[in-house]
Structures are given as C-alpha cells and as structure tokens.
C-alpha cells in the first residue's frame, strides 16, 4: 500500500484498493519478478487431465532464454524459414503500427492502436493455427493479419475510413473484419467476443468439423461477464476453443492488479472451471507457438478448451488518445525484464547463425518501404480529413438484410 492509501484517509476506512508498484516519478524496479530461465514447467501430453496443468497455469511456459538460447520441453522445433517468417510478420506489424500512429498524429485518421511489445502473441498464434480456425481478436492482434497475409492497403483503408474501406467507413479505425482469413469482426465492446468464440467452437463441433475457434481478450477485460460465460460454456460443452488472455500489464491506466486482485495468474481462472490452463511468456515467440499448438491439438481431439495467459507488456500508450507517462514511469517499458519479442526472436536466429544484423537492417528497410508504398496507395483513396467518398446511402444498408420501409423513408428524408 502506498502513501496515497494512508495519508489521505479522512475516515477510518479499511477498504483495500490495490495500486501498481510504480507511478510517474518512481524508479521502476522489477527485480522482484523472478524470471524462470531454465525452469519452464514441462510439456504434458495435450490430452492430460486439466487439473494436472496447474504447474503450467501458475508457472511460466518458456522456450527462449533471454540470451537467445533454448531450454525446456516446449521447443516447437521450427525450421529457420518459419522462424524468419515469424520475425518478418512481427517486424511488419511494428512498422505498420509506427506508420499509422504517425499518420493519425497528422490528422489522417481519427484513432489508432499499436501492439508494440505484443507482436509475438498475435503472430505466433496465427502461425500455429490453420487458416480455417476462426480467430476472435481484440484491437491488439493486428499481427494475425500480417501473418495471414492481408494486403496492407486494405488494413490502411479501413483505418482511413476511405473509399477503399470494405467496411464502408462504418467503424472506427482498427475494428477490422476479414472473414476469408478467419479473422472475426472486432467489436468495440470489450469481452463480447469470448463467448461468441465458444459458440463458434460449439458450431464447429456440431457440424462435425475439427476446426476450432481462438479468442483473445486483454487481461483487463477478463472482468467482464462474457469472459465468465466463455469459461463456463467452454467447460460445459467441451468446446474446441482456445481462450487467450493477453496480460500486457495495463488496461488503459489501470494496472493488471485491478483485474487480477489476489489471483496468482489469469490462467488459473481457467482451472477454476476444469479447463487446461497455461501461463506463457508472451514475449517468447516459440513459447506462444508451442502453447497454441498444444491447445489446438487438445481441442481438435475432443479435449475441450484451453486458457492461455500470455504474460507480456504494452510498451506504448493504450491508443492515440492517451499519454502513458501520465500514469506510469516513462522508463517502465525499457526496464521490463522480459525483453522485446522481436529482438528476442532475432537474437535466437542470430545465435543459430540463421540471421545477422545486416539482414535485419535490410529487412526493416524493405518492410518500411512496403508500408510506405501501401500507405501511399491507400491514402490516394482518401483520408478522414478529405471529403468522404463513401456514398451516404450505404449508411442505411446492412442494418438489415433488406432495407425496410422505415429506413427507406429516412434515406429519402436525407435526400438520397
């Protein structure tokens, strides 16, 4: 309990309110977090009794050590080409984020959200899945779209709400929908996708398919009822789903302890429902990949759902709308002890002799050019600042399958 708790009490309050370890002005020090280097919990058979995953739910599944070498049972043994592909997708994600953030600052779009520091979660998950597995993302898994190869221009047009936005400029930036790539329409309402994913998974089982559904939520949004419904329905109907909790330590300005309370880990919540549960180093591309493969195998084989907590860190602000230095020390991202997922995977490839600084620089340069090109193309179709080329009549479409008479009357009222 910090000084704030004690000094400002005006009554004899005994109400406990958790606080983050550091606030602006403090010098962040994470030496209390023990980084289990060699001691990743083992890899049980994917069909293990859910309760036997308790060590995995409370420990931290890791493959990549901070020095780039590998340890433990979870090594997915990926070939160098696959690793390089992963690195490329993550780097591309970061480049796109950088560019779009800057463009937002220049008034080209209303809003943007980066995923810096969390790229491994999205990219490795996507690479470990089939494309026919539907992912139910939040706004911070754009890495999936890179991994599944969505043309950058499409993504950018959505953010620019311009004539190229196949969603007709209806939603704020980053709320993509890409059904053909197994990417579910992102909701602005936190948490709702979790139980929808379970419904989708139940539908897969109902149809006799062995595709699965894979949902993501931030750790903050686990507090919503929809997360509870997801755990409960997944447990009751043994739904073939993976429920990912991306614990990036922050929910806008609230530290993870507001959602976690006295809980040891978010993964442990899954155990409460008899679901297999893994807590994974989310900055470790290989660990995320291996955990997802494990859970997917379990789900496809009728073993039901797995909860995976990805322990990671949101390196930047929540979105273009906030300044993180208002609620956490400026240096906190730099001293976060689990490193950067891109650097760690690059370091591993380098230690394998499959990568080097020069190639890295070259790749980065190439990706930046690619992003610049795509952005130019996208911008040529308009920005939010330019007069919209979207036909106002589209506003009345797709509310229903067919435009009902009252919407036709309203459209006429608007004079179109």
């Amino acid at each position, binding site marked *: 309990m910090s000084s704030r708790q004690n000094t400002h009490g005006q009554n004899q309050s005994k109400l406990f309110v958790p606080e983050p370890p550091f606030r602006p002005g403090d010098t962040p020090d994470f030496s209390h977090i023990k980084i289990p280097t060699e001691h990743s919990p083992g890899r049980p058979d994917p069909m293990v009794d859910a309760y036997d995953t308790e060590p995995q739910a409370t420990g931290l599944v890791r493959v990549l050590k901070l020095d780039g070498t590998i340890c433990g049972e979870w090594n997915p043994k990926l070939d160098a080409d696959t690793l390089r592909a992963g690195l490329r997708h993550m780097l591309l994600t970061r480049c796109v984020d950088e560019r779009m953030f800057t463009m937002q600052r220049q008034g080209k779009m209303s809003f943007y959200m980066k995923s810096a520091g969390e790229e491994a979660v999205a990219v490795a998950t996507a690479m470990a899945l089939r494309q026919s597995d539907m992912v139910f993302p939040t706004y911070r898994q754009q890495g999936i779209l890179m991994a599944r190869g969505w043309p950058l221009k499409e993504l950018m047009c959505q953010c620019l709400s311009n004539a190229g936005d196949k969603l007709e400029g*209806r939603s704020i930036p980053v709320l993509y929908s890409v*059904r053909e790539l197994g990417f*579910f329409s992102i909701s602005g309402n936190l948490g709702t996708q979790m*139980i929808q*994913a379970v419904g989708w998974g139940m539908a897969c089982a*109902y149809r006799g398919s062995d595709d699965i559904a894979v949902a993501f939520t931030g750790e903050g949004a686990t507090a919503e009822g*929809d997360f509870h*419904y997801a755990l409960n329905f997944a447990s009751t109907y043994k739904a073939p789903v993976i429920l990912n909790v991306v614990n990036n330590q922050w929910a806008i300005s609230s530290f993870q302890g507001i959602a976690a309370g006295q809980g040891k880990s978010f993964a442990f919540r899954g155990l409460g429902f008899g679901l297999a549960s893994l807590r994974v180093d989310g900055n470790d591309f290989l660990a995320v990949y291996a955990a997802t493969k494990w859970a997917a195998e379990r789900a496809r084989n009728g073993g039901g759902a797995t909860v995976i907590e990805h322990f990671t860190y949101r390196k930047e602000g929540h979105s273009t709308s906030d300044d993180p230095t208002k609620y956490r020390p400026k240096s906190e991202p730099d001293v976060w002890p689990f490193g950067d997922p891109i650097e760690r995977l690059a370091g591993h490839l380098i230690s394998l002799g499959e990568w080097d600084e020069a190639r890295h620089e070259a790749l980065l340069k190439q990706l930046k050019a690619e992003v610049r090109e795509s952005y130019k193309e996208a911008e040529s179709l308009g920005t939010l600042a330019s007069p919209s080329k979207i036909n106002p009549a589209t506003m009345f479409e797709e*509310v229903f399958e067919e435009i009902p*008479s009252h919407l036709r009357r309203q459209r006429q009222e608007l004079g179109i």
Partner: protein
Amino acid sequence: MAQMSMIEAIRSALDVKLSQDPDVLIFGEDVGYFGGVFRCTAGLQEKHGLHRVFDAPIAEGGIVGAAVGMAAFGLRPCIEIQFADYIYPGYDQICSEAARMRYRSAGEFTSPLTIRTPVGGGIHGGQTHSQSPEALFTHIAGLKTIIPSNPYDAKGLLIKAIEDNDPVLFLEPKRLYNGPFDGDPNKPAVSWAGHELGEVPEGHYTVDFEQARVLTQGDDLTILCYGTMVWVAEASAKAAGVNADILDLRSLMPLDLEAIVKSVNKTGRCLVLHEATRTSGFGAELIAEVQQHCFYALEAPIVRVTGWDTPYPHALEWEYFPGQKRTIEAIRKIMES
C-alpha cells in the same frame, strides 16, 4: 388442420424447423429433457437429439453470446430466455452484438438467430415474471421484434423468424399460451380448443412480418394493439358498442405503418394499447407516427391505455393490468372528444 394451443403451435414451429433444417438448434434454461418451464420444447430433445435441443447454464448473456457465435458461423440458433424479465443480462449481446454484426462487418458476419421469450402479466408473476420490454428492443437498430396473439400467427411468425437472416426477438404473451384472455380474471379461463385461431396447419407455413392483422373493421376509431391486449381490445370495443378498426400489429419492427395510417385516416380517432409501462413505451412511437401521418384526419387526441409507470405489482395485478374497464373508458373519452 389441427387444434393447437399457443404452446403447441410454438412447439410445432420448432419441430418443423428442426426437421427441415439441420442448422437449426435450440438451447436455453430447462429447454432440453424437461421441455421448458412452459413446455414449449417438450419432446423435442427426445425427437431431434441431445445435441440439437439442450439445456444451457443460467446465463442469459452466455446463451445469447454463444448463439451470436453460432449464427455468425452459419447455424440458425433459436434460443429461449425463460422470462423476458431475465433478458437484461443478455441485453449487451443482443444490442451491441447481434443487432450490429451485419452492419459493422459489412455483411461478412450476420446474426440469423431467434430469441424466444415469454412476456406480459396476468399470471400473478409479480414484477419479475410479468414485464413487457418490447420498447427496449424496438429502439435498437438491426433487431426485429415480433409478438403474436394467437396460435396460428405464433407458428407462422416463428417459422418466419427462424428463417429470417436477421436477429428476431420473438415475444410470447404468456397469458395467451393456453387460451385467449379478454382481460377479465374473474371469468373462467378459456382454452384455444374450438377457437378459429387455434386451427393450425401441421406442416410448414409462414406469416409475413410488417403485416398487421385486421381483427374487426369499423369507422368509429382505430385501436392499435398487440399480444394480450388484442383480446382486451376486442372485448372492450364490443362492450363499448363501437365499430372499431382493431389492428393486431404482430410485428412491431418492421411496422405495418401503411395499414395504420390508412385506418386512422379513415376513422380519425385512435387508441393505443399496451401492457408495458407507459413512458417511452412502444405506444409513444405509434402515436408519434400516427400524428405525423394522419394529423389532418385526427379528430381527437390519441389516447394510450397502458401499464402504469411502476413495477408490476403482485397483489394489485389487476389494478395494474390495462383491462377492459380502462380501455372502455378511453374509448368513450375518444368518442366524446
């Protein structure tokens, strides 16, 4: 033709769709083995299998949310919320998700799901088993809201709802499940047996949305109503000795505005009935449209007879229920002005 109660008609609709379409499935609290607390799904699990008709955890938000996922996948879930009074935990999934899925994804994902739920009072259910929340749904863009008043319509509209590619809220006036009810609790209960509207075809048929049913035709005034109030309207008009155009709206969204406007332009007088609390009830919307489209034809203010703006009390159920006495008074008042 068979004779069916409204419960049997609903069950028959579900049975027809389960038989025809492997993508239809039913779940909800107690709907499986037991067949629902009102028996609407009785026998369906045994006939169609456990994986097509099954019990759900007591989590209305979960039931709707799972159905949204299934519907987006391509199934046609038809879920039951045990009482409309308990639909609120699912309100977010209905309004923010089901209703907007098509729009926000530009048609990539849709929500062809049906939510069945019993509404209305008259069974001594008190404030938590009597509510009529239709107006909370008609305000939400992207939802259709349907409410039948008899077995024939119930079956045809429910089949239509399940086949519809948009989310449909299907409200079942529970006081009408076993028979029509004219609002007088002291008369012996009447059953659907022998009633014309209890004659229901066994197989597939649909009743269109956006089509009001004209019960009686008359030049004195127009009565707009739906659900249980349809029967109260009929009895009250008779008792008041007026020749009324009584319109059973059936489909609140989309609304058959054409029929309404035509009728009021003819009669020049309009009464609006509903059981729900008055303020911001669906009656307000009807009045807003009628006065706009029939202003120059109107000879008297449009009157609404509704539930009071209080929770639905248990002991004073019949003082709350907008029955014949208040309806007749309103008719008289309209005719006198």
